């Protein structure tokens, strides 16, 4: 089923939102985005920030780097000489904190890249699917097929399943290295994207090097 596209970026007037539901949704999204921007500013420019936001319901959200309290207290006392433990470069706790934030940011960067790659892959797969749907009627969504076509498809699928099961047991019996865990259960997050035959260009899959050991992680 195709995902319904969202409305995209709309230009709105900066005045209080009338509809309560919209207001709450906007608050939630924008607050989240605001903290994200604040977090980025801290990372990129090495500054210290505190943000306090009250919600429409009266709860309070706050973001702070290194933490909300120290920044607020510093602001309240208006101490011209900031607390040394915050800015002292030789402070071990501070150094450790910065190091872990740095690592976290690296990790975040990596995951975001992987996410982008996976998204692109999904797009390619979708495009391929679209072209195939035009060539092969059986690849169209089921709702578009007539009764006779559905029956044909069902038969073809059941036949395929028979062969698949046959092939599966053939393989299980012929080699012992599979062991008992042939259920093929694997953690999607841990597995590498291009597994076994299903590389990124499915069309050319026959020629790939599928050893019997692929797919086991």
């Amino acid at each position, binding site marked *: 089923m195709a995902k319904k596209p969202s409305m995209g970026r709309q230009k709105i007037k900066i005045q209080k939102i009338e509809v309560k539901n919209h*207001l709450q949704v906007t*608050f939630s999204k924008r607050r989240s985005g605001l903290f994200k*921007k604040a977090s980025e500013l801290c990372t990129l420019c090495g500054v210290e920030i505190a943000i306090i936001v009250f919600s429409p319901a009266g709860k309070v959200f706050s973001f702070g780097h290194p933490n909300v309290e120290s920044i607020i207290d510093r602001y309240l006392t208006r101490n011209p000489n900031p607390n040394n433990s915050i800015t002292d470069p030789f402070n071990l706790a501070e150094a450790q904190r910065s190091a872990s934030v740095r690592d976290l940011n690296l990790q975040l960067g990596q995951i975001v890249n992987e996410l982008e790659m996976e998204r692109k892959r999904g797009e390619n797969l979708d495009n391929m699917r679209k072209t195939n749907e035009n060539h092969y009627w059986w690849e169209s969504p089921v709702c578009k097929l007539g009764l006779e076509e559905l029956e044909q498809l069902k038969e073809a699928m059941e036949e395929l399943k028979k062969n698949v099961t046959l092939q599966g047991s053939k393989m299980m019996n012929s080699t012992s290295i599979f062991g008992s865990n042939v259920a093929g259960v694997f953690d999607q997050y841990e597995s590498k994207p291009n597994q076994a035959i299903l590389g990124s260009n499915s069309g050319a899959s026959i020629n790939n090097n599928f050893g019997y050991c692929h797919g086991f992680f």
Partner: protein
Amino acid sequence: MTRKKVKLAFITNDSSRKATFKKRKKGLMKKVSELSTLCGVDACAVIYNHYDSQPDIWPEDHNAALRVVAQFKRMPEMEQSKKMINQASFIHHRISKAAEQLKKLRHDNREKEVTDVMYQCSIGKLGLHGLVVADLNDMGWLIDQKVEGDL
């Protein structure tokens, strides 16, 4: 507005960092202001940089900002800390969210791939002998889903 991909790391080039700070600080303050107006809520932001002893704040008027801070301080400790987050936890949270999305995306893409292979096998374009057990299992599962669900 040029959109260059920015690495999430401290900008070592001084002038570049200063320029980025100026731009992003302005943008951030604008976002705080918009949030406050759009949702009719109180908010304040305090930014300390290493050049000035005086922080950049929003609202720009100290009294207004202090009012919000006082409001915050008046709340019970538990209320204050309930939705309080610092940089490290925030990034942690972002990482787990991204990891979840990645997991789902990988699953969806896998399903798309197996579907494609399934069709190729059904028309004889691809032979089953080239597949490994994991693929066969997934395909078998997918076929069952299709037959029971759709057909």
